[in-house]
């Protein structure tokens, strides 16, 4: 057992999978350069020395290296592609959406694309083009599995499950969760460390996680928002309000079993999302809850999300853009007061 942050846990998970299976390799920009960074967020630091020829540094060519990862996967390799910032997925999306996601179906079930694509997201003082919450653009694509990891335990376990899965899996990570200590920690970073067991383990790609049990309101979130939801629940507990916090975690498919169990119990739902409210994943979850458990709801679902604007640079506006614990707690109070 050891305490690790998300970057370290992912690094170990990748190394263990590369040791276990020779077909696994990593591809992306600045991931294995000697004297470099091991990717923008140090996830692959040191792996190039350990696995010569299997940490592939590419030119700045997202469409190209993603297409190559898809092709290599089809020919029996197990690529883990690294998108330096999630925002650059727009460049790679043709290969992901038109090729990776559809190959299985178009081929009548004969092609396999065991691809993993990792991408960091989140508003972090970098302005509009290095900040977007990208998971929304991929959750509605049939043929892609989409997960979002908010703890080191999940990061390692889901990475391993993704590598072993025969389908394309997108793993979203949050820049403020890689690590809250050390030279490369981001301002505003949140502690997402976990106790990591010594042995091999996986976390399934289709299960949500109840982070805090409660009885009066269900709060759903993922990535940074799962942490902020937990902080809000803590504040509410001090006021005598019992909130159940669920880390949705698997965004496609969504685990309505776990969510449903909670909704039937509380009858009230707040969904929290970093990213514009219109067209977000929370809209899908809300509709899914209405269809399945609408009869159990005692009040309409509330969404706490960002304004429908690009991510602003200036800290005052960026902080207003990003939902926080205070806004989440207030939404819960409003909902219970109805």
């Amino acid at each position, binding site marked *: 057992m050891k305490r690790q942050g998300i970057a370290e846990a992912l690094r170990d998970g990748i190394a263990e999978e590369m040791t276990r299976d020779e077909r696994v390799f990593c591809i992306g920009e*600045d991931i294995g350069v000697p*004297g470099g*960074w091991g990717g923008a967020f140090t996830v692959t630091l040191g792996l190039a020395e350990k696995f010569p020829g299997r940490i592939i540094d*590419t*030119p700045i060519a997202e469409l190209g290296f993603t297409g190559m990862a898809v092709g290599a996967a089809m020919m029996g390799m197990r690529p883990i592609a690294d998108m330096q910032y999630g925002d650059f997925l727009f460049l790679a999306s043709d290969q992901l959406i038109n090729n990776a996601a559809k190959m299985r179906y178009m081929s009548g079930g004969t092609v396999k694309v065991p691809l993993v694509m990792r991408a960091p997201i989140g508003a972090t*003082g970098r302005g*509009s*083009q290095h900040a977007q919450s990208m998971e929304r653009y991929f959750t509605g694509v049939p043929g892609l599995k989409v997960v979002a990891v908010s703890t080191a335990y999940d990061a390692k376990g889901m990475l391993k499950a993704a590598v072993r899965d025969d389908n394309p899996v997108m793993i979203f990570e949050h820049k403020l969760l890689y690590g809250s200590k050390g030279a490369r920690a981001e301002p505003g970073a949140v502690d997402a460390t976990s106790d990591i067991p010594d042995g091999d383990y996986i976390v399934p790609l289709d299960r949500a996680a109840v982070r805090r049990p409660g009885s009066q309101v269900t709060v759903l979130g993922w990535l940074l928002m799962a942490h902020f939801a937990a902080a809000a629940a803590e504040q509410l507990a001090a006021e005598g309000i019992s909130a159940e916090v669920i880390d949705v975690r698997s965004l496609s498919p969504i685990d309505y079993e776990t969510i449903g169990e909670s909704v039937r119990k509380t009858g009230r739902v707040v969904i929290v999302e970093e990213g514009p409210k219109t067209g977000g994943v929370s809209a899908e979850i809300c509709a899914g809850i209405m269809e399945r458990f609408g009869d159990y709801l005692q009040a309409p679902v509330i969404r706490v999300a960002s304004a429908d604007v690009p991510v602003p*640079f200036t800290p005052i506006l960026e902080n207003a853009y990003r939902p926080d614990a205070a806004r989440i707690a207030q939404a819960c109070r409003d909902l219970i007061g109805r």
Partner: protein
Amino acid sequence: MNGASAANSPASPVPLDREFLLGLYGKMVLIREFEERVKFLFLEGTMPGTIHQCQGQEATATGVCAALRADDWITSTFRGHGHALAKGLTVQEMLDELFGATTGCCKGKGGSMHMGNMAKGMVPGIAIVAGGIPLAAGMALAFKMQRTTQVVACFFGDGAVAEGAFHEGVNMAAIWDLPVIFVCENNLYGASTRIDKVMKNPRVSARAAAYGFQGETVDGNDVLAVYAAAQRAAEACRNGQGPVLLELLTYRRTGHSRRDACHYQAKDEREAWFSRDPITRFATQLLARRDITQADLDAIKARIDTQIAQSVELAKQAPQPTLADLTTDVFA
């Protein structure tokens, strides 16, 4: 103007006007001092965000923009502070932007990576590598359709050459003879990756021939060489003989972004380039003239230092946005 001989090709006549030369020198010193001050403010923790700086590359922005008219345009990148100052943005509007103030050139909404001012011919910086290349070609298409004689200088790095957007944008500019100067600032690295790892043919200017237009490699740390090449390129573009690709060889003296110690750069390579610093080299050239003295250069630096210091104080007090500003400016 082909790639192989271009570095030594004779320069067009350069106006050796004293004021003009001192102006170029002042611009380069302004960029250097601005960047050094911004670096300090970041390390000190008073300035938010992240930064990509251009110390060591002052001659590229200065030389190119000196060859442009006020109604010409530039596009820029995440590393755009030098381009902005060279195109005439003020220290104040840029510092205000970096401090997130409403008086910044983009009202604090853009930040370091998206510096720009449409009134001064600079599109907000495009932080997606190569994202400015097709866009600049489109601006040039507009100039052609509007029958103006404007040109656009499109700044990008060596790293951008590998992107599909480079191929698509450059090819369309070529087939339609568009007035765009593609300015590749080749500083040998894209982030931590050296060009020899990602280009089989490291001569960027040679790519122009494959698309059927002119390309030239220039000493990007020689501001007069850059200026002369940019003048020729601008003239070709105005005469309907665009586009032109200029590969400017240079080196960044600082990290790729905020917390980069550059361990991937060889010490001897760094030292060799530091000894070719564009500002020191130009100062030596200037001091060889009888009508320019060290006192002239010192006075320029002193004036700039005072200007920047005053602007920093004002920027720290500049008005911050209110929550109502969050939802403005989304639509025209």
